[in-house]
């Protein structure tokens, strides 16, 4: 039998606010354990949460960018369970009436087809702390609790079970990742857990409309692992059914070392979280004006920008997609165009030389030693015939190294292209005289020798001769 996988993703997005969601403590990563805590995030008796407005603004932005409706009156709820990293014995989250509801993302499943993936909800919640085991946990042989991360703001983005393969899941996840980093609300760092994912997976016979029993896979923290985990889990479930077994509803943990999933807890062992509205927080009322203001403040999103790059700047779809991989890259490209570079040339160079140099040196685009203005200046030198494309690459390497302006490098190193026909004719004459045999061959019909002459002239000019002028003069002289 053939099986159809059905996948839904729950993505936790850690927000880039300076302070925590319900208190004024810093959200900085990697500080001394428990140094960024206060009565509120320690869950001390009597402490009360106060909502960080920035978190709401970020949530609205995420919602608007994923076509959600913004709930006019949303509610915080307590999710009750005991764990040492959860100071209050409950997590403040949202349950009924989350801030964003009923959105979607259109993902590209292949060259031609788009597919709409529903987003059930986006809600705000606080993160838990961390358990520290072993030596760093302090005196004794017990475990320690570091509550620096407790109360850090998260968004949870829950998709509909609309994904049908591991590839679709990865495309969806990458697109969501692109949006939240593009909005500047998340740093997108998956290793540090700023963007993490749980996957709900089931399989059903192809053609069936009855969904199979699902398993929830936790702890999949890279695009590669998402693909691996989903594929493993699909196969595990198919094998189980084929062998006459049944899939049980459970939570499973992905092990990145083995690429497999293993059972964490069954449905029977699942927590009853006893959600109820948090009486310490009043309902969050978001006016239409607030939503509109946020909509005005939204940056142009990747999809819109791609479209504009194609329509206004005439870029091919491939270029538009590559250049909008991140907001910084797109900004770089546009700044180059604004500085006077021709769009296609800036695009080629941004995707080519710039990207290569960034990768080689491990530099981010924001820190590129060659500014968009400098790149545009370089490309203008090609455009106006001052240097050839080939020389430009040499100039670029020097710009990258020294940060100098391209004009200065060209002048210092005497790299100006020679277009003066007199000078080039002189070189051609010398070379023809020194290679009389090859001249005869050409004139005898062996036109391939032409390339040899071009090469010789360019070499004699140290690459500076204008290739177009060389071609033209050489042809007329050889034909004599």
């Amino acid at each position, binding site marked *: 039998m053939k099986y159809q996988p059905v996948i839904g993703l729950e993505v936790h997005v850690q927000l880039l606010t300076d302070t925590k969601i319900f208190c004024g403590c810093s959200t900085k990563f990697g500080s001394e354990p428990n140094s960024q805590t206060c009565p509120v995030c320690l869950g001390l008796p009597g402490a009360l949460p106060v909502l960080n407005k920035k978190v709401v603004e970020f949530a609205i932005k995420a919602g608007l960018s994923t076509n959600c409706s913004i709930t006019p009156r949303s509610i915080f709820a307590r999710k009750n369970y*005991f764990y040492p990293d959860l100071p209050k014995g409950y997590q403040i989250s949202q349950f009924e009436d989350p801030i964003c509801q009923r959105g979607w993302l259109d993902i590209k499943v292949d060259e031609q087809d788009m597919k709409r993936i529903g987003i059930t909800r986006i809600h705000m919640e606080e993160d838990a702390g961390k358990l520290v085991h072993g030596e760093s946990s302090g005196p004794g042989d017990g475990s320690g609790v570091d509550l620096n991360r407790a109360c850090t703001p998260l968004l949870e983005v829950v998709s509909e079970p609309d994904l049908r393969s591991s590839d679709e899941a990865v495309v969806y996840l990458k697109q969501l990742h692109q949006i939240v980093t593009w909005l500047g609300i998340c740093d997108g760092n998956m290793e540090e857990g700023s963007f993490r994912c749980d996957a709900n997976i089931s399989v059903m016979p192809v053609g069936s409309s009855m969904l199979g029993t699902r398993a929830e896979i936790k702890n999949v923290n890279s695009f590669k692992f998402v693909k691996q985990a989903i594929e493993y889990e699909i196969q595990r479930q198919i094998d189980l059914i084929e062998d006459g077994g049944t899939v049980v509803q459970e939570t499973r943990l992905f092990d990145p070392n083995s690429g497999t999933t293993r059972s964490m807890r069954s449905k029977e062992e699942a927590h009853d979280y006893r*959600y109820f509205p948090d*009486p310490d927080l009043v309902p969050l009322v978001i006016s239409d004006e607030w939503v509109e203001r946020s909509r005005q403040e939204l940056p142009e999103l990747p999809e819109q920008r791609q479209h504009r790059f194609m329509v206004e700047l005439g870029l091919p779809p491939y270029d538009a997609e590559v250049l909008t991989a991140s907001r910084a890259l797109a900004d770089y490209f546009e700044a180059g165009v604004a500085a006077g570079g021709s769009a296609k040339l800036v695009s080629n160079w941004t995707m080519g030389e710039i990207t290569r140099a960034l990768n080689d040196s491990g530099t981010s685009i924001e820190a590129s030693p060659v500014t968009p203005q400098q790149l545009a200046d370089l490309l203008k030198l090609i455009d106006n015939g001052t240097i050839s494309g080939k020389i430009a690459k040499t100039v670029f390497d020097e710009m990258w190294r020294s940060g100098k302006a391209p004009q200065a490098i060209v002048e210092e190193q005497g790299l100006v292209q020679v277009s003066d026909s007199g000078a080039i004719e002189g070189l051609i004459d010398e070379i023809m005289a020194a290679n009389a045999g090859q001249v005869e061959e050409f004139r005898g019909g062996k036109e391939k020798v032409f390339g040899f002459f071009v090469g010789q002239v360019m070499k004699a000019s140290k690459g500076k001769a204008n290739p177009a002028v060389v071609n033209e003069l050489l042809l007329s002289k050889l034909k004599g």
Partner: protein
Amino acid sequence: MNIIDMTIHELHTALQGKQLSSVEATKAMLARIEAVEPQVGSFITVTPEQALADAASADIRIAAGKMDVLTGIPVALKDIFLTEGIRTTCGSRILDNFIPPYSATSYEKLKERGAVLLGKLNQDEFAMGSSNESSAYGITRNPWDLTRIPGGSSGGSAAAVAAHEAIATLGTDTGGSIRQPASHCGCVGLKPTYGRVSRYGVIAYASSLDQVGPLTRDVTDCAIMLSAIAGYDPKDSTSVDTPVPDYTASLTQGVKGLKIGLPKEYFIAGLDPDVQRTMDAAIETYRRLGAEFVDISLPHTDYAVATYYLIATAEASSNLARYDGVRFGHRADADGLLGMYSKSRSEGFGAEVKRRIMLGTYALSSGYYDAYYVKAQKVRTLIMNDFTQAFADVDVMLTPVAPTPAFKIGEKVNDPLQMYLSDIFTIPVNLAGTCALSLPAGFSNSGLPIGLQLIGKPFGEETLLRAGYAFEQATEWHSRKATI
């Protein structure tokens, strides 16, 4: 006049006139505490050093002419208020070793005005009780009759005022926990409107019902205390940002033309005859003062106690989850995490607290949530609507505070349901979120104080205090002293 018998405004006048110093007043209070504590048991922790230090700085402030009405006044707080550096137990063994690193907003406000802290007062464990018998730190006895309970859960706060161990105190009221002990101990107690006073730094029992309020010798003191502690607090999202009037300013305006509602559901057959007689007399007094009476109805009153014990316990079950032995409080030695949790909590919590955690956990559990918690919230809305509708016709309501005077120690300990019913007239006010005042209104034949309850509109504390003041001026109940 004896220092220990003074009200805030009397002592303030004496301090201002330099007839005595705050240190002298504080020493007198500490001596009184030492003398009567063995019999009464109002305090969990007495803080003489803190008190004398506070008093010394108050005297400096008084000498510098920067005096507030509360400067140098010895007060005490229910042990539910966090006090930085001073043990705060909430009446529970689980917090026996808890020294808070910060203070409640209401305590901060009293400190700013220069009040003197005498200590932390006994209470029912986590404010769960109506008799102070659920405290892990021993019972508190009613100063009017040491064989009886003082009421609860702010029993220590009421007993300390009645036994003249503190000039004024703060308590909290979740279902009557200020008003019922005030009534039983013959003092004035106010439960302000929900959101009027910050809950920050007050250990939570039921967050949507808890409210901080004063217990005092008279209405003027009550107005002084409320003026000090009321107001918006950016640290408490449920506190309300409305201006705080000077509650003492309008006290003398009288009750002529005031419309007082008598909800028929509160004057049930079988009401204790002493209570009934006291209410009748109070109505007569107000009538004489020019108030008008209107018969009204709060039709959902019968459901209030059941509603309260679902909502309050549900919230409590979650609020008390943080006492897990991990970061503070009692931690039992046990193998493994689960063992540590259950042993710490088993040892740390008393029977009534456990009972309410279990009730609340049950009410929130999957499969029961709609039938219990959600249903209770709907009934709560109906009860709120009852009050809104009734207040369209009246300015305040007059009712008994409790169905009986103070009962005997041990009388209801083994009958939780009977215990719960002692809050039948106070609970609806918390569910409605409005304010109410408990006022000395008479005595039973056996000499036990009986209070009357005035219920006000939301943020109608000024009207309540004005009506209370008029009654107090016309009667002498508040000036009687317990014989201890």
